[in-house]
């Protein structure tokens, strides 16, 4: 049972907020931030694996578009398909 704050009474209306409740909310908020941070870190850093038999996932940058183009041209003589997706 927490101790009621002075601010817990407003215009004669008792509020349910107590010091312990505020502390619980603070702990919960910190926990949410920590979990969100860990989730974000995991999303950013988790290893990515493509299915068996495929080349490893390649990351394109503005200076590596030539790699994408070269891969396209390397399959000269074959029908080619290019598909573009959002990961979520």
């Amino acid at each position, binding site marked *: 049972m927490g101790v009621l704050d002075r601010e817990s009474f407003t215009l004669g209306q008792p509020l349910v907020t107590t010091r312990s409740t505020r502390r619980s909310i603070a702990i919960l908020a910190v926990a949410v931030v920590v979990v969100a941070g860990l989730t974000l870190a995991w*999303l950013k850093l988790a290893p*990515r694996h493509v299915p068996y*038999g495929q080349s490893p996932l*390649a990351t394109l*940058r503005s200076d590596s578009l030539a790699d994408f*183009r070269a891969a396209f041209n390397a399959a000269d003589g074959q029908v*080619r*398909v290019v598909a573009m*997706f*959002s990961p979520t």
Partner: protein
Amino acid sequence: MRGASALDSLLAEFPEADLRVQVDWEPVLLSDIAAPLSTVLGLIRDQRVTQYWDPDRVVSAEFVRSVNANPARYGFDDPLPPEYIAWDNVAVFQRSARWGHDSPVPAFTSGPVIDAIAATRVAIATELAAARTVLE
């Protein structure tokens, strides 16, 4: 996501076909904060596929640049808006297609991919048949 799975199923309909596929994953939605996870990459299992993570959307930008350099060549009446993002899209290219200064003109392109599977099937079959005709 459904489009990626549908594309993989479509490729499975051509198990022996001589084709190559490039899949470009790019951030478009607010939730696209990182490269696709392995579970997402696993939606496309075909071994003829190479998958790319394109955080700066350089492939889309190159397509837009190419189209805007000559809209009529790509079947457009007007240039695309500079901020246009090509995504959830599939394009099929002839076996003779070559990517020079500008991206080649696709024999077929459409999207969203999930809605374009039937037409993509026809386009792939058509191009494979044309390739066989040339080789015979």
